[in-house]
């Protein structure tokens, strides 16, 4: 009897001990294929480390508010984070993220395979490393090859402009071709996402970079209202008013996808990952096999991406770093890439197996090499709203281009000032 009691006590103690020993890492993840790819690979991590990982999967729109409330709490419910580049200024500025360089040095983690544009976007903030690039969604031009090759359209274009109909390489050429397609091809020249806020801000930013402009210089002096910014807005307004689909002023990414998928538009300026969606014969039979990806006309598009980070108030920082090391290891990144992940490492983008499966990654690499980032600071999300509002006012004709770009620049300056970046 006494022996049985001892045995039960030992089993209980062992059980409690095991329960205490098993660390469970929790993270808030966006409900996108990338998350489910990683979920499939998690047993490998658990087997190697004994650490369990649980994802709380939600829609993008719910993420920011949920994260902020946890980051403000004494202890975060999330042990590691995936951070969109739009928050990559806000989170470190608020002191919510753990600097990662000490972890990198201690573990010998190699940062050299990462593309510099990605480390710049979702790695460093004010010279300190807070994130490890996780995923890229840079923007470029997706266009219909069948319309570019159409002999009637080619002849008409040559007759009207005295040059060949081809993939545009400058912003002026792009808008000109887009308007031409609307007038002659029976489709919208561009499927545009003109809804105020993130959709039109992201789209317009490509025009700014494509026109050779930028939002600010290295010292945070606003340059948006310079000649390039004004030209960008003028061309954006022309394209949305003369060449875009009906309803473009309130359209978002989903709307433009539907437009393009149904063969109702010649082009779209969008995230590169849209290409495999459109090129899928089951999803988009009307355009599959007829779409291609190109660098944003003008050579520079918007860079976008996510990074891994560890919250300052995480209870399991060391274990969280182990997870990041594992998920960003060469072996796992390649596995993820072969399953459809969008890599941030050059070795994955140039890997022969990956390229054999996804030949357009060669183009993605070019897009990433030329990609530029929008200002990343504490009020990036508000910047999207302020600039987006002015772009939308210009697009609806409620403000002229000069006034709108000046007001956008003024709003941007106000935000830089609020963030303490300028005096």
């Amino acid at each position: 009897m006494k022996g049985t009691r001892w045995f039960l006590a030992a089993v209980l103690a062992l059980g409690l001990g095991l329960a205490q020993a098993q660390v469970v890492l929790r993270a808030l993840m966006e409900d996108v294929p990338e998350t489910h790819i990683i979920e499939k690979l998690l047993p490998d991590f658990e087997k190697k480390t004994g650490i369990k990982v649980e994802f709380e999967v939600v829609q993008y729109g719910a993420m920011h508010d949920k994260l902020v409330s946890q980051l403000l709490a004494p202890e975060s419910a999330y042990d590691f984070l995936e951070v969109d580049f739009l928050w990559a200024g806000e989170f470190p500025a608020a002191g919510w993220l753990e600097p990662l360089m000490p972890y990198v040095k201690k573990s010998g983690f190699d940062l050299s395979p990462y593309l510099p544009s990605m480390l710049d976007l979702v790695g460093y903030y004010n010279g300190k490393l807070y994130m490890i690039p996780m995923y890229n969604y840079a923007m470029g031009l997706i266009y219909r090859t069948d319309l570019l090759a159409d002999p009637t359209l080619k002849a008409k274009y040559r007759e009207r402009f005295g040059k060949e109909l081809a993939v545009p390489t400058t912003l002026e050429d792009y808008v000109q071709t887009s308007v031409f397609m609307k007038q002659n091809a029976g489709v919208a020249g561009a499927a545009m996402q003109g809804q105020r806020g993130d959709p039109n801000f992201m789209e317009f930013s490509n025009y700014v970079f494509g026109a050779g402009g930028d939002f600010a210089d290295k010292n945070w002096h606003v340059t948006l209202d310079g000649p390039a910014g004004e030209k960008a807005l003028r061309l954006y307004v022309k394209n949305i008013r003369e060449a875009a689909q009906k309803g473009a002023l309130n359209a978002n990414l989903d709307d433009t996808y539907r437009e393009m998928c149904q063969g109702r538009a010649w082009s779209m300026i969008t995230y590169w990952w849209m290409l495999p969606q459109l090129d899928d014969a089951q999803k988009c039979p009307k355009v599959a096999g007829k779409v291609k990806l190109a660098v944003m006309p003008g050579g520079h598009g918007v860079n976008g991406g996510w990074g891994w980070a560890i919250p300052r108030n995480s209870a399991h920082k060391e274990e969280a770093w182990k997870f990041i090391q594992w998920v960003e290891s060469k072996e796992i990144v390649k596995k993820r890439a072969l399953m459809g992940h969008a890599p941030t490492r050059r070795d994955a983008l140039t890997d022969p197996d990956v390229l054999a499966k996804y030949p357009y990654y060669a183009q993605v690499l070019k897009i990433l090499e030329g990609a530029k980032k929008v200002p990343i600071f504490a009020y990036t999300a508000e910047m999207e709203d302020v600039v987006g509002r002015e772009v939308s006012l210009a697009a609806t004709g409620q403000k002229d281009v000069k006034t709108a770009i000046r007001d956008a620049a003024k709003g941007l300056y106000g935000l830089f000032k609020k963030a303490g970046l300028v005096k």
Partner: protein
Amino acid sequence: MRARVGASFAAPGVLVLLLVVAFPLLYALALSFSSYTFLKPTLAPWVGLAHYLEAFRDPYFLNSLRLTALYAFLTVGLSLLIGLAIAVLLFQPAPGKEFFYAVISVPMLIAPVGVALIWKMILHPELGIVTYLLGRLGFSAPDFFGDPRYALFTLALVDTWQQVSFVALVLLAGLRSLPKEPLEAALVDGASFPQRFLHVTLPLLRPVIGVVLILQTIAELRTYDLVYVLTRGGPGAATDLLAYFIYRKAFLGLDLGGASALAYLLLLLTLALVVFYYRRVFAEI
């Protein structure tokens, strides 16, 4: 002694009310005078009325205020008119009324986000059924949400579609509870249906209409979900209603102090309207 026993019974309820109503209100008031942001979550330094004054200097806030007033006027007015018409129709003796009750209740049962998504597709400028039907009739459908001339009105109509159920059911309940004698007396005196409705039914229904007005105005001034799903305040600033403006101030601008001040202005506006309704509708009863 009895008073003490009574107070002890009321105490838990009062305590809960203080915790869930008074505390958040007072805390928000304190925030509105502070420089509290998500980046610097401390009340100090106090900024006094700065957030309130700043709001009245912001042309986009004033635009939101104007749009919200117009929106509330449109939605409350339309839902009251249509709801009253439906309630009067349902009050008449007719077979199979249960079916109509069920149909009328459906919009009320759908979450506003669901309503927004349904109407987004119905009014889609290229793929929507309304666009298709108008096209078949030889008309070109307007760009309902993409044209700043129509966006606010379309939003108000979508909202009205949902709110009419509630208004109709409350007014129907009011009609059923009216005393029969005045109506019968009017009938005996030879009053026509419009005369009976305007001079007997409507005055008797006034308290119920007053309650509906107050509830609907409060709900409409706080409209957020439809704007979030359908237009995000655009195109331009054509649908930038106050509640959505406040949300952006808090969660995009990270400025909880400023957002609390705006929320208090919305609260004051709502209170002023409620007091106005009380005076106009209930004072003479």
